[in-house]
């Protein structure tokens, strides 16, 4: 501490601090008028990529608050020339955000990239029951999921992501080569990847979509293709080939509502949001189609 000074000098020092603060601009953020910019890792709300969910129940099991409710059923899919296969169908996926403690364990344990954090936080409700978000609402949050941030220098990315990125690069190169060869009229080599839609994945990665999001999307596309195929009643083709073909068709075709996408981008919507919206539109349209088909039969 300083030597004993004039009595009252401490009081004056304090007064100087407050006066200085008054003369400098305030730091208040005018919240409802100015939205905060939240980092991508913010745990705001949990989004569900429904297409990726395989009903493995890991999230519901690991949830410390027991606030994830999943109903599911088994469905048999006849496969021509082979045994029938059973598939898990997600009937209900709900998260009770009134109970949720936002620990993020469900997102962490999900092995199929079906759950994501979104920084959105404005979903307060008057009725507490409304805080239980069902599947559709959780799927809608997916549009707001930002790509994960790049890591700090010196960080070692997890092995599977590293491998994923390498594979994606290779795929992208291969795809480019293949496209070239297709253009040249060469034999079209089928991408051999029954788990995710490799084409789309490669394309997205090449476009600069972060790897994880790209994988999730590619997988979604693949699952959708598979579903569509099932809805069509099983095209009479060999399974592996058919899958890949359908996937390819999906990837090249209206995986997202291109029209809407183009329009939104032209309107100035950020590309990510635009794609998400376009995709949502596409999914909706497709669902409608499927329903109509079912109704027709």
């Amino acid at each position: 501490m300083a030597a004993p000074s004039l009595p009252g000098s401490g009081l004056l020092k304090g007064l100087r601090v407050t006066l200085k603060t008054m003369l400098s601009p305030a730091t208040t953020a005018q919240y409802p008028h100015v939205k905060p910019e939240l980092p991508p890792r913010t745990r705001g709300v949990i989004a569900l990529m429904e297409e990726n969910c395989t009903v493995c129940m890991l999230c519901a099991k690991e949830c410390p608050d027991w606030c994830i409710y999943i109903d599911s059923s088994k469905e048999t899919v006849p496969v021509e020339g082979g045994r029938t296969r059973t598939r898990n169908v997600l009937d209900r996926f709900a998260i009770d955000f009134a109970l949720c403690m936002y620990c993020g364990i469900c997102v962490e344990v999900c092995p199929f990239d079906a759950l994501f954090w979104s920084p959105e936080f404005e979903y307060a409700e008057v009725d507490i029951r409304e805080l239980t978000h069902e599947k559709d609402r959780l799927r809608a949050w997916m549009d707001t999921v930002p790509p994960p941030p790049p890591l700090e220098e010196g960080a070692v990315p997890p092995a599977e992501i590293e491998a994923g990125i390498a594979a994606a690069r290779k795929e992208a190169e291969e795809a480019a080569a293949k496209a070239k060869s297709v253009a040249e009229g060469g034999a079209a080599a089928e991408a051999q990847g029954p788990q995710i839609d490799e084409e789309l994945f490669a394309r997205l990665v090449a476009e600069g979509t972060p790897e994880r999001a790209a994988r999730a999307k590619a997988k979604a596309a693949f699952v959708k293709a598979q579903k569509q195929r099932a809805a069509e009643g099983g095209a009479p083709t060999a399974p592996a080939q058919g899958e890949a073909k359908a996937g390819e068709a999906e990837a090249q075709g209206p995986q997202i509502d291109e029209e809407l996408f183009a329009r939104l981008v032209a309107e100035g919507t950020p590309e990510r949001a635009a794609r998400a919206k376009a995709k949502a539109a596409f999914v909706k349209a497709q669902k409608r189609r499927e329903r109509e088909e079912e109704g027709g039969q």
Partner: protein
Amino acid sequence: MSETLPQEGGVMLPGGPGEAMSVEIRDRSLVTQEMNLNIGPQHPATHGVLRVVIDLDGEVIVRARPVIGYMHRGFEKLAEVRDYRQIIALVNRHDWISAFCNELGVALAVERLMELEVPTRAQWIRVLMGEWNRILNHLMFIGSFGLELGAITPVFFSFREREDIQAFLESATGGRLHFTYCRVGGLKEDLPRGFLDASRQMAQTMRSRNDEYRQLLLGNEIFHARTKGVGALAPDVAIDYGVTGPTLHATGVAEDTRLTEPYCVYDQLDVSVPVGTNGDSYDRFVVLLDRIDASLDLIEQVHEGLPGGPVNLKMPKTVKAPKGAVYVRTENPLGQGGYYLVSDGGKTPWRMRMRTPSFSNIQMVPELLEGSLLSDMIAILGSVYFVVGDVDR
């Protein structure tokens, strides 16, 4: 109203059960009827739901008895039905302003029981986050101590800094209060790009802001009059009660886990622990301010020395601690946090005892309160630094 009047000649007064105490009545000619006053459980000075039952003679406190348990949430019982990752998400909630340090304690306990060697980078980052969390915590108390003495500005200043710190901690952890960033065997994930820059910048800002707090309060004559010599705690009493953290350091005892039993990489860093001399409210407050600087020193050392590498061990899907028991202590912002973990080999602990600093600190409070003025009680409670959730768990 208390029905017990001090008896002529007698100095032993029946206190609350278990806490009968001897009180010296100084001026016999002025024995007045005592007034029994409940401070809390809802009172602005008790930061939550602590309740102190005091008997007043005029404005002098003759007896004080803290009543706790209003925020008891059975954390130890809850921990027994949770696996270790879920416990980490749980323990950052009892002391909500030292979230990361609590997570760290649990992770260290499990790691010690499993005899895991956590990657170096993870350990450095743990130190970084722990020290930022310490600053967050101290800022809170700097603000609230001023508020309790009637200076309303420091709390706004300190919350401004808290916001800034929380903002960049959120970019790494995803949470502003409950970070849930620690994991058994490392961390949830590595830092995002730009985090270290933000941290460096904030450390600089924080230093100048810390000087601002000093100017605002420390030189102030009224502040001196309110805090100097108020609630002086003797070192041996403090140790006997198990008081730790800034409250203990203010008495001149440098018992700090980071110093005496270093964990993570504290043994590779130059840790400085500011200590006081008189153990009064003033010293406790100055120690708090100095600790911010000491933490900033550590943070800067981490910026310099942070190695590259992975932040996680390859862990099995379900973490099971082997059968056994271990006690791990960490230096939480408010004092020593202890985690006594008994495992029966399953994926949930058999027993998880949390020794929380606030519990022991509050136990000591009657020693300081008795004989002081009602107004001083605020200065004392505000400078013993406790979080009611941490007391009650």
